[in-house]
């Protein structure tokens, strides 16, 4: 892992005839989830002159996204396949490089949008010409697409997000399907941080944008973010790579935003630690003890705030109880008579 932070250069688009929108859909073994993703975009398609839609596949081996694209979208959606697997952050860069529109929506091949997403987001850029990006609230779903929770309500009406950098760094309120970024912002700031192997590349990017441009937020939950064990983030949980990525992202904010107050980076470490504890809890419930231990350990390594320490202790107690209960349940029943 290199310590150098040198994001890819995003060249401006040469052509004068540009659509307003580029919906760029990175995939890697996303399987059938891609059908729902494409369907959700095509249901609000304003036509090829107004919207570029392209799937950028990172050389999937387990499935055939091109066949899914042809089946669902005919030739309305372009398809590009990497000649070899380049990793998710480099694939996102390819998405941005291949985009031709003014507004770029990077919609992962397992996420989706709800009706009205593009119309609502367009209103933001119409209302406030100088924003770098706009995001709405997110609905989290499980692997089956069932809703599990909502991202927090940050403000009661659509508008500029006050104190955007601190909000992004300490709360990570925007999930990839919920955010639309001006292409010119990527041209100015460069591509994704490729050192981040499993997660936090989005968090780092949004913080970089917030450090340079105003952000718009709409409280309507119009984006769907799927959490599943086979997702990239899901795979990083067993090795603890998610924790290393999160810490590197926070260290990067501190280097690139010298004015970032210490309190804010402490809160960011705490947020990351609490996320690891949430993962640990899920691992405990799924009886995945290796992931549980790894995430608990990484949480305490990441932040030693009072909240993280208290919750870690609670997590240990809960695990001890669960193990005793398991032992109890598996012991042969003895007659009490």
């Amino acid at each position, binding site marked *: 892992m290199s310590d150098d932070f040198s994001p890819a250069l995003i060249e401006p688009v040469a052509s004068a005839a540009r659509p307003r929108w580029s919906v760029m859909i990175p995939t890697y073994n996303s399987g059938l989830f891609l059908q729902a993703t494409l369907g959700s975009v095509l249901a609000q398609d304003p036509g090829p002159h107004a919207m570029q839609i392209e799937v950028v596949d990172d050389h999937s081996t387990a499935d055939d996204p091109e066949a899914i694209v042809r089946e669902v979208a005919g030739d309305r959606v372009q398809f590009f396949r990497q000649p070899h697997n380049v990793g998710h952050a480099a694939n996102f860069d390819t998405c941005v490089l291949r985009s031709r529109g003014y507004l770029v929506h990077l919609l992962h091949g397992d996420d989706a949008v709800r009706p009205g997403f593009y119309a609502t987001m367009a209103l933001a850029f119409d209302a406030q010409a100088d924003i770098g990006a706009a995001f709405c609230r997110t609905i989290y779903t499980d692997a089956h697409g*069932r809703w599990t929770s*909502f991202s927090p309500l940050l403000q*009661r009406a659509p508008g500029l997000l006050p104190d955007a950098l601190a909000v992004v760094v300490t709360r990570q309120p925007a999930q990839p399907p919920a955010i639309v970024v001006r292409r010119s912002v990527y041209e100015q700031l460069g591509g994704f941080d490729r050192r981040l192997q499993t997660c936090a590349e989005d968090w780092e990017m949004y913080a970089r944008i917030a450090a340079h441009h105003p952000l718009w937020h709409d409280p309507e939950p119009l984006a769907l973010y799927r959490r599943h064990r086979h997702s990239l983030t899901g795979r990083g949980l067993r090795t603890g790579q998610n924790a290393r990525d999160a810490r590197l992202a926070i260290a990067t904010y501190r280097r690139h935003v010298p004015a970032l107050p210490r309190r804010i980076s402490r809160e960011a470490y705490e947020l990351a630690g609490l996320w690891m504890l949430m993962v640990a809890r899920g691992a405990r419930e799924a009886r995945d003890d290796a992931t549980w231990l790894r995430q608990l350990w990484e949480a305490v390594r990441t932040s030693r705030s009072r909240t993280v320490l208290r919750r870690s202790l609670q997590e240990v107690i809960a695990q001890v109880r669960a193990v005793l209960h398991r032992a109890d349940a598996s012991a042969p029943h003895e007659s009490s008579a």
Partner: protein
Amino acid sequence: MWTSPHRATIAPRLPDEPRPRWSVMIPVYESAALLRETLRSVLRQDPGPGLMHIEVVDDHSVRDDPEAITREVGGGRVLFCRQPKNVGHARNFETCLERSRGHLVHLLHGDDAVRETFYDRMSRAFEAAPEIGAAFCRQIIVNDDGHWLHLMPMERAESGVLDGWLGRIATGQRLQTPAMVVRRSVYERLGGFDRRLSWTEDWEMWVRIATEYSVWYEVEPLALYRVHSRSSTSRQTTTAETIRDVRRAIAVMREYLPADQVEMLTREATRSCAQAAVRRGRRFLARGLVPAARAHAREAVRTHASPAVIAGAAAVLLSSLARRARATNDE
């Protein structure tokens, strides 16, 4: 078994009366501004007057004019009825049940709403499982402005008839009224809402229904339940009257829960009520509402004096004393 002086008898409709499939009964009291969204959410999926009776039942609002809103949004489509005097919300719900004409009754409070396809999905539940007495869907909790805040947990992975439902609903409230659709014939048999209850009358009704009928769960979150920011500081909440009302509801349930389960279920219900009281006490304390915190600590111990509850309540009381001591020192 179900006749009681504490609940209204819901008389069957006349046999030759034409009856729609649905009655959407909308009780309101001083919430006319929110009624617009409630009515619109129903009218967007209106199958027509032959299939759906829609009526607003006003508990004699004086600060605003729900009749004007009903006319404005509903034209002549939505009926309106006003109580001659204020009767309280539980009695007003009773009037709603009595005035309903449809086979399926949806009691939709005048500040809640439904999402599109609610009536279709619920209709299909009663077609798929004709034996059910009631059906409800997952709920979304919304704030004063209608922004979505939380999702209620899933009761079941797929839509279908709930297993072991009585054991779950009898141990604590777990759903909001706008999500529930009940056959009118069920109310005709089991009676109206219990008049001894002022806060938990809906919960007690769902338990009563669960003792006699199977219940369907729809996994899509199609009902929107509004939490008012002022309701957490209302008199009923801060005096812990709501906790006393849960105890009253548990006492009512003892009258009819099956003999082989009544002890276990009421013990569980009592325990979870006391735990909720401790949690609320902690929350009030965090917000600096000391009398409300203490009221909840006291009610928790009165409800269920287990070591865990006593310890939790004592912690709330001690922190409230510490807070007062600090406040005195600061002066």
